[in-house]
């Protein structure tokens, strides 16, 4: 068995498990802890609620439902998930029953407390309202009292003037007997209902009432909904029993509460006192009830996370078991799933452990199935490679056993990033950050992380490598926060005698700076000219090498998938096309670098012509094939060589276009004669499964990869698109690698500007101003360095590196049409919910 590497995904096997139903639950528990098997759904046609273990899941759902809300309401935090609870084992059926019983007990108790609390609160509400009614109406009564005389006078006057004798007599008797005999209704109604109430009263009584109302300034909480209500106290004076009862009816139907109070002020005062004292008592009882409820909830909160962990694990188990099938006798559960071939012994071991620990003598059976289904892609990653692999997975999951670009990404990604982010200073700051994340990873992993920080944390090893590589490229570019270091002996010397304002030229000392860019270039007038030319060419070289490598990876895929001919029909023309144009270009770049164009012969004349522009050389290679202007010649024989290369490139196009489709057509027509034999093979496969189990068999046939219909025209169209795309991409992708230059230039320039604008200006001052200025300038410079150069520029370089990997690199070879291996594991189930 081959060692597992990142180069290709893990070999997978389709395994079938026969699990005796009495030990199904502990077995699945064991597998869930392992997290190595991805179960297939054997009942895809069955509705979610018709599955075998729905009732169990529903029971567990019920268990989860109640407490969270209660705790939230009383603002109690549950204990965070600790490692101990995280690994709490899934329990046996007996323990689950116990747990359910316990939860139910708690729930009943809490519910009881809630009801009594509500009852008390309602009582409290009533009393509070009554108190307000008493207090507010006292004012109204006083007013009414004082006004009564004037009202009576009014009545008297009217009556003497106009009213008929008889009626007056009757009413008069009334007036004289009991004073102004007005009945009244007092009560409380919610504030927004008040206008409606008034309107209805006015209309139904035709204005025969005197109404007064006052707001209750104290907020009143509704015991059921916990909402704060705004209420008004009202008092209505009206005349006649009928009318009073009508008022009562209306106010009740509109949701008001009526509190009848006594007429005499003394009794009212007594009542008020009594109500107040009862409110006091009730308040005490209420807070006591609250206390006990809170204590109970706190006790629950202690254990809740542990309980929920168990419940969630149980739920995950039953969800997994819903994917299983019963055998004909219903004594066994049949599970099918994908598992890495290397892990089968581990799984078998787990099955044995589960059987032993549950004390059953019938053990589960694991068999490997032969199948033509497409297995999932499983890359075994560790904490270091995980981040890099996810960069590739984000583009597409590799086809099963395809060459995995994730392996190469490990180095190329940080390197390309660093080419754009070359600055030793910035790299060092980033390294400190990365080291902090990496060295404290255990501690940080335990902590609660917000989204952005967890993103950085997940990519900590990427950041680490990126920072180390940018230290290296920064040294190459000789940039430390846009300044340069002189570590070795420089190759140039400045002339010592010059007048201010004069342009001076450095004198070459005929030696080369040992590593990277000569610091003399720093601050020189033509520094930008030089670095631009250098970085641009470097970008092209890196790009072409990177893409050539990507094309070469195709060989591994072609050979592995048994298409050796494709190496000749597809890979070869591709690589020839690429190299005859762009491979030639980088040869030219390297050649041009290696030649001393200013070399003089003995008589002091230039041996060579002035260095020709490579861009023009490349353009005229196509515009005037075979001819090179002697002025622009790089080396003798350049014309014929270019002619030859163009010929190769031109030949490659039809080669690419036609070779593969015609080969496939030939292979297909040959294959057709052989299908009879092939068919027998297929039926054999199915029969083998048939004696395993019957019901799952039906959809096997559907699931199985059908032999693809071959259509020549379709293949031709596909290939022509592919060819055109490849040829155009060679050009555009090479140009795309120039972003390495552009981003690196932008980064260098930005850090120079920042240096000069914020920090350098203060160096010209002296004294106190310089001190203050330097402190201020440095803090500004440092903050902006971190925010703009490390944060934003880093992000932008990251994104561009990402694009180079996804489009330019992966586009050349990566199929990326697989699907991911997602094993059933508790760790997964617990972290997602």
């Amino acid at each position, binding site marked *: 068995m081959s060692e597992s590497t990142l180069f290709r995904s893990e070999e997978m096997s389709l395994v079938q498990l026969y699990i005796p139903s009495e030990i199904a639950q502990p077995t699945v528990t064991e597998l869930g802890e392992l997290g190595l098997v991805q179960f297939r759904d054997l009942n895809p046609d*069955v*509705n*979610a*609620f*018709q*599955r*075998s273990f*729905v*009732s169990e899941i*529903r029971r567990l759902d*019920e268990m989860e*439902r109640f407490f969270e*809300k209660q705790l939230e309401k009383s603002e109690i935090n549950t204990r965070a998930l600790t490692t101990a609870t995280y690994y709490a084992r899934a329990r046996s059926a007996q323990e689950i029953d116990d747990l359910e019983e316990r939860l139910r007990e708690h729930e009943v108790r809490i519910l009881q407390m809630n009801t009594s609390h509500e009852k008390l609160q309602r009582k409290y509400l009533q009393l509070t309202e009554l108190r307000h009614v008493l207090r507010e109406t006292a004012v109204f009564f006083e007013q009414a009292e004082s006004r009564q005389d004037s009202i009576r006078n009014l009545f008297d006057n009217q009556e003497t003037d106009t009213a008929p004798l008889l009626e007056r007599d009757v009413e008069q008797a009334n007036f004289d007997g009991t004073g102004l005999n007005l009945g009244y209704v007092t009560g409380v109604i919610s504030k927004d*209902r008040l206008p*409606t109430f008034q*309107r*209805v009263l006015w*209309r*139904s009584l035709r204005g025969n009432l005197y109404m007064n109302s006052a707001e209750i300034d104290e907020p009143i909480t509704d015991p059921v909904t916990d909402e704060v209500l705004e209420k008004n106290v009202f008092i209505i004076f009206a005349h006649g029993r009928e009318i009073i009862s*009508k008022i009562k*009816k*209306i106010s*009740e*139907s*509109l*949701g008001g509460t009526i509190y009848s109070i006594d007429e005499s002020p003394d009794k009212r005062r007594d009542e008020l006192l009594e109500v107040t004292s009862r409110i006091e008592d009730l308040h005490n009882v209420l807070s006591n009830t609250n206390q006990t409820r809170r204590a109970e909830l706190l006790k629950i909160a202690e254990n809740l996370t542990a309980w929920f962990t168990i419940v969630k694990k149980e739920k995950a188990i039953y969800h997994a078991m819903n994917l299983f099938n019963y055998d004909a006798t219903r004594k066994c559960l049949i599970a099918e799933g994908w598992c890495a071939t290397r892990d089968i012994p581990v799984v078998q071991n787990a099955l044995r452990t589960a059987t032993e620990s549950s004390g059953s003598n019938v053990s589960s059976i694991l068999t490997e199935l032969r199948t033509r289904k497409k297995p999932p892609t499983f890359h075994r990653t560790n904490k270091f490679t995980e981040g890099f692999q996810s960069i590739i997975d984000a583009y597409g999951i590799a086809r099963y056993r395809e060459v995995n670009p994730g392996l190469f990404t490990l180095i190329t990604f940080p390197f390309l990033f660093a080419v754009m982010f070359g600055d030793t200073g910035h790299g060092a700051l980033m390294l400190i950050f990365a080291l902090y994340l990496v060295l404290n990873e255990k501690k940080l992993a335990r902590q609660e992380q917000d989204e952005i920080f967890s993103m950085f944390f997940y990519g900590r090893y990427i950041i680490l490598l990126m920072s180390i590589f940018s230290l290296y490229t920064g040294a190459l570019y000789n940039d430390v926060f846009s300044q340069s270091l002189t570590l070795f002996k420089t190759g140039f010397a400045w002339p010592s005698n010059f007048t201010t304002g004069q342009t001076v030229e450095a004198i070459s000392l005929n030696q080369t700076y040992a590593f990277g860019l000569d610091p003399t270039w720093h601050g020189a007038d033509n520094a930008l000219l030089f670095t631009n030319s250098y970085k641009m060419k470097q970008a092209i070289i890196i790009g072409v090498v990177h893409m050539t490598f990507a094309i070469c990876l195709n060989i591994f895929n072609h050979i592995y998938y048994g298409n050796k001919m494709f190496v000749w029909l597809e890979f070869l023309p591709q690589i020839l096309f690429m190299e005859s144009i762009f491979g030639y270009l980088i040869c030219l770049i390297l050649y041009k670098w290696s030649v001393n164009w200013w070399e003089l012969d003995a008589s002091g004349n230039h041996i060579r012509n002035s260095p020709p522009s490579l861009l023009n050389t490349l353009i005229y290679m196509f515009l005037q094939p075979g001819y090179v202007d002697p002025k622009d010649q790089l080396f003798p024989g350049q014309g014929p060589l270019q002619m030859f290369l163009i010929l190769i490139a031109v030949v490659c196009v039809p080669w690419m276009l036609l070779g593969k489709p015609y080969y496939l057509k030939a292979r297909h027509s040959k294959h057709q004669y052989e299908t009879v034999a092939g068919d027998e093979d297929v039926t054999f496969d199915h029969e083998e499964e048939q004696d395993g189990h019957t019901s799952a068999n039906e959809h096997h046939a559907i699931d199985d990869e059908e032999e693809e219909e071959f259509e020549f025209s379709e293949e031709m169209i596909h290939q022509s698109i592919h060819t055109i795309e490849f040829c155009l991409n060679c050009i555009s992708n090479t140009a795309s690698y120039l972003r390495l230059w552009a981003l690196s230039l932008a980064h260098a320039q930005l850090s120079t500007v920042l240096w000069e604008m914020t920090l350098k200006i203060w160096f010209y001052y002296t004294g106190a101003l310089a001190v203050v200025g330097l402190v201020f300038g440095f803090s500004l410079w440092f903050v902006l360095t971190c925010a703009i150069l490390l944060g934003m520029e880093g992000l932008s370089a990251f994104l561009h590196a990402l694009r180079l990997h996804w489009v330019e690199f992966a586009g050349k070879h990566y199929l990326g049409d697989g699907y991911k291996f997602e094993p059933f594991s508790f760790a997964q189930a617990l972290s997602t919910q």
Partner: protein
Amino acid sequence: MASAAVWNADNGFVDGILRGYKSGILNSSHYLNLTQCETVEGMKYISSAGGADLNENVRLQLSATDYGNFLQNEPSPISTSTISEKLTQRLVAEFDFLRTQAVQPLAKFLDYITYSYMIDNVVLLITGTLHERDTHELLDRCHPLGVFDTMPALCVATTVSELYNTVLIETPLAPYFANCLSAQDLDELNIEIIRNTLYKAYLEDFYDFCQKIGGPTAEIMGDILQFEADRRTINITINSFGTELPKEDRKKLYPNIGRLFPEGNAALATADDIDQVKSACEVFSEYLIFFDQAVGESTMEDKFFAHEVFLNRLAWQQQFHFGTFYAYVKLKEQEIRNIVWISECISQNQKDRISSYISIF
């Protein structure tokens, strides 16, 4: 066309929302799943648990649809009335959102939709008060779309004029009520007459309003409201058989719109039995099947509903009109009826009748 060009400026947003809501209406496969809540595999687990548990499955099914987790926080066992209440609450929430976002004349149009519920509520309350039912219980049974501020005060009224003067005068129903003031006592028959008079006035008013808006709204709402009017006419006629309602009064209750108006209405006014009703309606072949008792088990009522659903469904075939809003409310109402029917059937073990719901899409 001119209205179509600027229609979206005012109504585009609400219409977009509405069409989003519409795609949440359950389709036939949802219903199939719902009715399957008692078949084959499920049977095994469900039959032991009894009816309440069956509704559990309705809940499980609904949670897979647009209704999402609206029943999540209800403790099981869950009753049919809870389901219906929650479904209605959702419809009302959606309607309220549309209403608050709407501008005139759509706002007015949406108000018109609520008037019919207001009429129902008013009649419900007066009937309840007549039978001395508890006010709060009555209020709970009112349709939330037809609730208005002063509604509870209806319970106080004992005569028609009091009803009008204290409560209804400030509601939009007031003009419709003007025709009922002649009736003095509140008894069963009078209440029925009040209901039908109100409805007649409402339908005519709504119809006029839609015609005033014009365009596709007039066309589509015209069809729907005319059918509504015809349905009422036929219902009134059939229900009046064997009551003491005089024929002249009966004729007064017929809405003056609809396809049956005026000839059909005149014929119906003199009808004495169902055959005469049938012959009066025979002119329209679509109406013929309502009287066809032989086909299937479904009642006339159900056939009316089915035809209403058909008309409302047609409303979605056109753009730039208000008919969709009306249709949405009605379709959603039908959906609630369907779900309630299904869950009732499940909880009462009437599985053979479960499929007589009216599938919408």
